[in-house]
């Protein structure tokens, strides 16, 4: 009962109280961490590992999508919001108005957005403009034969998308369709990256996208090029960092205002060698890899 009460108190009280006040009876400080579905497994892995590093802090992770994390940040109900896209200026403004503090941004890892098809599909590479015609409103590509693929049991392309609070959805729209274009109506909007991979693996005519950490052996990752004349590249650490793979992005964490000491320690640990090793273990690109290859992510993405 006491444990339940403590939990309830620490949950309800976290919006306005500082770390000191938020300590539950067991003496643990609680960090609330919500947001990106792309990052939820990674964040969970960090949280579990951090429990062995600093036993006085407990990190509570939940997903829901980047939009959910940002919404929680705006409402002031979360300590760290995970985000697989940049915060919009409008959202930043609302967060400042609501909480009186400026959101602070931290790049914690990199991700190449993987595009994949079923293993039965002979397609192995695709260009950004072809992707835009498949996914975009009034797009001209609806059949596999238009991509030169024949011998599919059904010619129709099954377009798998994400629901609109996904940071991956926002990033894909911006990077592939351009700022102004919308997705076509009638795409299959899955609730999470896992569902996307699941459906693509089990549906011969499907195409889908997610963070590279979610790709499994049941789906085939496509090589991607900017236009058909260029050569295409697989999503991996080298190609993402060298900029050859065209749809790579930073994974971000946002705090409201300057992080408190407890949160700052946690973030510092995430940036450390130990924390970044977990990034690689979860299939994403660690920051440390960036140091060798020159930082092309820092601006404009």
């Amino acid at each position, binding site marked *: 009962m006491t444990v339940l009460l403590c939990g309830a108190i620490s949950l309800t009280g976290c919006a306005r109280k500082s770390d000191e006040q938020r300590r539950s009876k067991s003496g643990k400080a609680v960090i609330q961490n919500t947001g990106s579905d792309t990052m939820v497994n990674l964040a969970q892995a960090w949280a579990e590992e951090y429990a062995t590093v600093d036993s006085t802090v407990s990190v509570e992770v939940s997903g*829901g*999508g980047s*939009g*959910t994390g*940002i*919404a929680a940040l*705006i*409402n002031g109900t979360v300590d760290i919001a995970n985000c697989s896209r940049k915060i919009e200026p409008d*959202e930043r403004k*609302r967060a400042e108005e609501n909480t009186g503090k400026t959101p602070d941004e931290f790049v914690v890892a990199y991700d190449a957005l993987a595009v994949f098809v079923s293993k039965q599909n002979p397609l192995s590479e695709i260009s950004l403009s072809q992707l835009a015609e498949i996914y975009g409103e009034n797009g001209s590509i609806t059949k596999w034969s238009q991509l030169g693929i024949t011998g599919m*049991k*059904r010619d*129709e392309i*099954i377009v798998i998308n994400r*629901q*609109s*609070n996904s940071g991956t959805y*926002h990033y894909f*729209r911006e990077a592939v369709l351009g*700022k*102004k274009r*919308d997705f076509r*109506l*009638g*795409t*299959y*909007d*899955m*609730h999470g990256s896992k*569902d996307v991979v*699941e*459906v693509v693996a*089990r*549906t*011969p*005519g*499907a195409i889908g996208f997610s963070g590279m950490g979610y790709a499994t052996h049941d789906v085939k990752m496509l090589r991607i090029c900017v236009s058909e004349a260029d050569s295409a590249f697989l999503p991996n650490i080298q190609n993402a960092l060298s900029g050859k793979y065209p749809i790579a992005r930073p994974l971000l964490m946002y705090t409201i205002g300057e992080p408190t000491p407890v949160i700052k320690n946690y973030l510092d640990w995430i940036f450390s060698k130990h924390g970044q090793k977990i990034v690689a273990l979860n299939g994403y690109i660690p920051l440390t890899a960036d140091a060798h290859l020159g930082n092309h992510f820092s601006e404009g993405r």
Partner: protein
Amino acid sequence: MQNRGNWEMLSEKFIERLIWLCGISSILFVFGIFFFVFREGAGFLFDGFNAKEFFTSIEWYPTSQNHVRYGALALIAGTFSVTLVSMAIAVPFGLGAAIYISEFCSPKVKEVLKITIELLAAIPSVVWGFIGLTIMNQLIIELFNAPIGLTVLNGGLILALMSVPIIVSIGEDALKAVPDSYREASLALGATRWQTIYRVLLPAAKNGLLAAALLGVGRAVGETMAVLMATGHSIRIPTSLLEPVRTLTATIAAELGEAPMHSEHYQVLFIIGILLFTITFVVNLVADLAVRGIRNQAS
């Protein structure tokens, strides 16, 4: 002595009041819920909400960068199509099961069946959704040579399995409520068991059976997680059983988390909530009137 009597009177009054409050509370809750849902959506409903677009356009682009559109027609069509399919499956099966349980089977089989059917109701909807996403998707692709199995049919089948327990248990109650004298009289006149059922019992219990079916409809309309995962969550008006749809409930579930508090998008989702509330209210009202029909007939 006098004192004790007063005390008893007072406590009795207090208990009466308390029980009255318990009884009346559900009304308070329902109106409270309606009030809060309505309040969240009201700001946009009366200021800038385009009802014509909402009910006639299928273009649902709540987060578009250049042109935000809130057309819910496809979502409404999605909800109705999935509900219709699930009822077409669940009502015959549910009522058939109810008739078998109340009229034909031995007490032992009856117990086993009732427990098993109630177990169906206990399976969490997200598990149903996962079954739809993985097992049914592939089955439908193979059986119907469909491009993808996340379809109206998939969602309808899963919702049917979810609403069968309600239909069975209420349908069985309705049949049980028919007095035994009806059965005995019918058999005495030389009717067979089957004749007794469809000439005597079904007409006598028809209001209760209708109520069972309508409560099943309410379950199907309101289900969220299973349809979110099993129907493909795709904005279009379906023209066949093998096309995907998106329902009103699934749209709220998928998008409410994102929508910043009190933004237009957030308020539109609450307007969808009001619409759903109205639909289930009408369905339950009809079910209730039907049930009241039985009581009047019985008395």
